[in-house]
């Protein structure tokens, strides 16, 4: 039995256990993918944030009136949960770095060098090496972007959302999203120019 999102939400609002489970299984991979990219590849943190996002969704699902699409409402919660999580983490790191100088740099370099999932079947060492190097460079360039620009770019390029959807998710005007996206594109185009040439 495959229900539409609307029907599923209506049943979840009545605390229907089946609907809640179906909802989790339908959306958890998408939510995890966003959290993973926003956590710059920290799988554990991404799982914790995915869980937190779902809990927020179900705590607030009765407040959802259907004014916007459920899809954007849900992603808005996921993105905001991840942003809050990142903020908490940065605060923690700042406190710890007060008596552990050097740790922050280590953490930052760790963030950049987090391994991405396996890219495919290609076993050519040179391809694998250049692939890993490229992944590192992309991560490094993405981490150099201001947070909003990075999130907007990730939602556009990796999640395939439209500018209008991103605007709804981020709670910003479409013009603002466009401006952030273009700035991010300009920066990445310059930072990764060697990889754009054939």
């Amino acid at each position, binding site marked *: 039995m495959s229900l539409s999102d609307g029907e599923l939400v209506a049943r979840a609002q009545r605390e229907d256990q089946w609907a809640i489970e179906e909802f989790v299984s339908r959306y*958890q991979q998408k939510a995890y993918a966003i959290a993973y990219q926003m956590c710059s590849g920290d799988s554990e943190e991404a799982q914790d944030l995915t*869980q937190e996002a779902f809990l927020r969704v*179900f705590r607030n699902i009765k407040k959802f009136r259907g004014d916007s699409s459920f899809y954007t409402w849900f992603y808005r919660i996921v993105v905001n949960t991840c942003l809050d999580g990142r903020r908490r983490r940065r605060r923690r790191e700042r406190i710890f770095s007060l008596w552990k100088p050097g740790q922050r740099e280590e953490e930052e370099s760790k963030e950049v060098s987090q391994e991405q999932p396996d*890219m495919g079947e290609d076993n050519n060492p040179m391809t694998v090496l250049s692939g890993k190097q490229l992944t590192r460079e*992309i991560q490094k360039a993405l981490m150099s972007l201001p947070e909003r620009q990075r999130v907007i770019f990730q939602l556009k390029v990796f999640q395939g959302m439209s500018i209008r959807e991103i605007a709804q998710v981020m709670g910003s005007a479409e013009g603002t999203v466009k401006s952030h996206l273009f700035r991010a*594109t300009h920066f990445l185009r310059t930072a990764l120019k060697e990889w754009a040439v054939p």
Partner: protein
Amino acid sequence: MKPCPDHKETLWLDVYGELDPNERPAWEEHLETCEGCRQERAQLFRLLQTMKVNMPSPELPPEKAEALARSINRKLRCARGEETWWQKWLWGRPNRLIPALTAACILIVALGWFSLQGLRTPSSMRSISNLKSEEQLLVKDSDIIKNLDLLEEMDTLRKLVQVVDHGGVPSHTNHN
């Protein structure tokens, strides 16, 4: 060759698939005549494609996805007050703490078992009890040694009693 600065925004919108259909014919016409914009468009397409290939969307493995779904359901039940305090305590921990808690439990059980084994067959205790029995024997012996004089005196007394009982002469002297 550089792209036209006036067409930068149009170019980016095209690359992101967001170009207004009304603007497309004019843009395509421009592309036919502008080598710089054509080149930039191709390079930007390539860069975005390379990024997508090298940063694929991660997938939760089925067992982790299942564990995550279970954990969400548990927490929701807990929030609705359908769980007891110990279930809340046990399942309320972050997932990553579960292996640590399991390891701690195994360690406690192992330590308990070893200490119980130690109490059942305490080799040191056994040697102490052996020493005690030996000491007890020595004490008994020393008692006998200490009372040897008394025993000799008692033997003399017994002989004296025999003499008195048999009329003043010890029995062996009668024989003589």
